[in-house]
């Protein structure tokens, strides 16, 4: 009998052992699910994923930052306490504040920026945002030189590819960077750079996390040229809690893979007194439904991406709640309060915890603009009139009201209107089925049933199928053309887009920075993201002229004209709607989340109301004067 107990005892011992080897976590001041809670990387120069960038702004700081509680996302000093810009708008001189410190107590110096930006400009690192760094004079040449010299190195015979040779190439790379790239640390507290052209959004770029510095003494210990190919061999490890050196309001104290991340206040942060929470916990939750449960049972305070299928119903219940409080709601709105502040002043009710804001992002359908389709047939969409006709035949109002159902604004432009100060959006095309049919006939298709079957390519998740059905139905009903839906996996989908292996395809774009070019560059004939293979010299010329224009108003007018060509004449894409950001948090207990379209949330602004730490008075956006318009819904 005793023998029979052995397996049981073994199993029990296994459980106890495993539990003991695995510590439990203590509750933090603030817990939130950052995307799905999984961070791909904390290596600043390699990130491009929203949740990574959001975490980065908590652990690191750059020269500047956006004041996210202004409607213009105004640039304010961060590690740089002030700066000067030369008259031609090309040379920037930043003065670093003396009190800026790394989490080990060392000062943040100008050389840290030079080191980090050089890192971003190495093909070895493969930064997704390399194009931004190429705006610095000499940077493009440096990058191309490094690519070439790595290729030359790899062509060497085996015997010559030694550690010494690889080290020598690296030495040469560093020297070349210092000599040819117009980025200089004048002294520890002065950083200058010259750009290839005046770039009005450069200060905004400096606030972008990929431009934040890493700690050179740490990172350089993990990067060494490999004799095999001369490239820097990037070893993992420096982003882990016991090693990572941070410059931001928080520092990393725990990171368990796909499980949780924890941040504690950085005692060396220069502006530490403004931080109203001591610790932040970021659990990983993959399942959209589990996120809602975690919030409803009180184990998390904030969900940044509500993606459950029933979110439209949650939003509908919030609208009901507004209806029940219509009078108060309208009067608060008339005062010019922001959406979150309005919620805060309405009666306490769990229905108000879901928050829907228009995002700085647009959902559209691409047309393949090449003369021939991938299978060699003539492409009917090569004719701009055809594209215009198709754009006019989509009933976006119905699509948004009946299919999307989460308050998405209808889009007739690719840049969300009123989101960029000083930029006037073109009107775009409206829904006009009759005009569309006439235009199609004019383009040589009087009998639409003769039109080749329109194939709509989309990836199979996130409700894209429903949108495709709705658009296909519109084109069939209003234009009379035959349509077919084509669904693909997300993994292979981008490849089809890049190769223009489609007729019509779904796409979308989230802005990287607060300037129209973040949306407009992707239609430039030579741009890597021009999946439509759109090519209009007039359009390219407008962008070129804008890039050298120093007068801000004139520049905006040129860009506006460029967008007009896209959304009124050439239509390489049909804008359908602007995305929304859907958050879940209780406005009565959490302050520090802003309702701006650019949806940049900084966790160091969070204040848990009534916890006795920080000011405990809610932070709100400036009052909007209705006459000025603005980005509130």
């Amino acid at each position: 009998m005793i023998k029979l107990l052995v397996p049981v005892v073994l199993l029990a011992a296994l459980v106890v052992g495993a539990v003991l080897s695995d510590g439990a976590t203590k509750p933090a001041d603030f817990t939130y699910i950052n995307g799905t809670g999984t961070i791909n990387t904390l290596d600043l120069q390699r990130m491009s994923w929203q949740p990574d960038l959001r975490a980065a702004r908590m652990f690191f700081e750059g020269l500047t930052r956006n004041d996210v509680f202004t409607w213009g996302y105004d640039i304010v000093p961060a590690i740089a306490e002030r700066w000067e810009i030369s008259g031609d708008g090309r040379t920037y001189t930043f003065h670093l504040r003396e009190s800026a410190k790394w989490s080990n107590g060392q000062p943040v110096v100008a050389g840290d920026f030079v080191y980090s930006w050089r890192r971003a400009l190495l093909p070895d690192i493969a930064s997704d945002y390399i194009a931004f760094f190429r705006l610095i004079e000499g940077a493009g040449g440096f990058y191309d030189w490094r690519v070439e010299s790595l290729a030359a190195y790899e062509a060497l015979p085996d015997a010559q590819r030694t550690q010494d040779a690889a080290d020598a190439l690296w030495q040469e790379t560093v020297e070349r960077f210092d000599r040819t790239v117009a980025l200089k640390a004048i002294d520890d507290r002065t950083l200058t750079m010259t750009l290839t052209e005046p770039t009005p959004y450069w200060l905004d770029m400096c606030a972008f996390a990929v431009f934040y510095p890493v700690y050179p003494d740490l990172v350089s210990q993990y990067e060494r040229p490999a004799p095999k190919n001369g490239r820097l061999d990037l070893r993992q490890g420096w982003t882990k809690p016991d090693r990572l050196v941070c410059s931001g309001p928080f520092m990393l104290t725990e990171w368990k893979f796909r499980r949780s991340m924890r941040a504690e206040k950085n005692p060396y942060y220069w502006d530490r007194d403004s931080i109203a929470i001591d610790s932040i916990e970021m659990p990983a939750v993959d399942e959209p439904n589990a996120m809602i449960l975690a919030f409803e049972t009180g184990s998390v305070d904030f969900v940044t991406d509500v993606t459950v299928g029933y979110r439209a119903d949650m939003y509908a219940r919030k609208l009901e709640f507004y209806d029940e409080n219509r009078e108060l709601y309208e009067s608060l709105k008339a005062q010019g309060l922001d959406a979150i502040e309005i919620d805060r002043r309405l009666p306490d009710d769990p229905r108000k915890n879901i928050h829907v804001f228009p995002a700085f992002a647009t959902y559209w359908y691409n047309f393949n603009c090449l003369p021939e389709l991938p299978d060699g047939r003539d492409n009917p969409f090569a004719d701009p009139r055809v594209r215009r006709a198709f754009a006019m035949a989509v009933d976006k109002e119905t699509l948004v009201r009946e299919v999307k159902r989460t308050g998405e604004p209808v889009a007739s432009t690719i840049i969300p209107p009123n989101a960029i100060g000083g930029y006037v959006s073109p009107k775009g095309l409206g829904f006009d089925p009759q005009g569309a049919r006439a235009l199609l006939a004019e383009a040589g298709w009087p009998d639409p049933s003769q039109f080749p079957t329109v194939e709509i390519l989309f990836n199979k998740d996130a409700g894209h199928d429903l949108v495709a059905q709705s658009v296909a139905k519109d084109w069939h009903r209003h234009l009379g053309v035959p349509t077919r839906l084509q669904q693909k996996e997300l993994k292979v989908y981008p490849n089809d887009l890049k190769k223009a292996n489609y007729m019509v395809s779904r796409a979308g774009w989230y802005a990287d920075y607060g300037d129209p070019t973040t949306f407009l560059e992707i239609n430039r004939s030579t741009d890597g993201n021009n999946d439509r293979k759109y090519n209009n010299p007039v359009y390219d010329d407008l962008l070129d002229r804008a890039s050298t224009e120093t007068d801000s108003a004139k520049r905006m007018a040129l860009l506006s004209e460029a967008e007009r060509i896209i959304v009124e004449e050439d239509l390489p894409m049909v804008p359908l709607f602007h995305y929304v950001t859907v958050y879940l948090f209780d406005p009565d207990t959490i302050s520090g989340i802003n309702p701006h379209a650019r949806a940049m949330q900084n966790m160091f602004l969070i204040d848990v109301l009534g916890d006795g730490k920080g000011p405990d008075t809610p932070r709100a956006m400036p009052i909007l004067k209705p006459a000025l318009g603005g980005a509130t819904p």
Partner: protein
Amino acid sequence: MIGMVLRRLAALPVILIVIYTITLTLAWAVPGNPLENPEGRQPPAEVMEKMKRQYNLDSFPRFYVSYLANASGFEYARDWATGQIAHERAQAQDAGLVPPVRPIFDFGPSLHNEDWTVNEIVAGAMPVSITLGALAILIALVIGLTAGVVGAVKPNSIADHATLAVALIGISLPTFVIGTVLLLIFGVWLPILPVGGWGGFKQLVLPSVTLSLPFAAYIARLTRMGMIEALDSDYVRTARAKGLSERSVLLRHALKNAFLPVLSFLGPATALAMTGSFIVERVFTIPGMGQHFINAVQNKDLFLIMGVVLIFATMLILFNLAVDVMYRWVDPRIE
């Protein structure tokens, strides 16, 4: 017996190589580029090409050989024998660098989660999966044996039918249904247990119970069959005739024999519970091996896929071996 163990251990590498070859061929055939981030921005094309080269993603034979050499420990053994490892360490120290981490079995970096190696990921997830699986099997044993004995003592009674019905439900209902229902009842309606996550003992309860139910049902049926047979046998009649108490007859004589089929089921069941819990992991947001495997497949993260598969396979083989050894030890009649 030692001969059997040695034979089985000798077969282990052969089986693993077969599994490795099949899995890698299938995973390789999955379309998509593992270095690509579908929703993110892309680095320039020439950089992408270089990166593919660096990870051997441009050639199946090269990937096959290099991964196998690293994962099997061959690379480590060779570098150790030639003094390369000591040399690298000394060199790094001279240059003021952190010496490279060289695990014996090196499953490589994760392609999707750039800051992690597969070894680190597995080291973090393994205790989770083992705890969950082992606890589930323990619960399954307690529930299954009790239900089986109760049913067998009075066959065709209400208690018997009830346990059989519950067992049938346990076997036929998928765990995502059971899990979700338990989660709704205990996590949402009467919120006495957390709805997910990992760390505390409370968070263990729902997932391990959910995972245990199908196994419990199976064990109950095995026990019941074995018990009915045993209770009908001569030695039990003898035991009763000797005047032993009913409890002693049931537990010491009948159950001892009825337990043997359960024991042979326990080997694969334990391995399965520890490796195949991805649905339960998903429902309760548990960071175990199963979740990582699914995510790895979705991201075509070749290094992680192969690492998890090889470790799973090794576990499965070793558990079966352990049970066979135990089986012979418990019942020496078996050859």
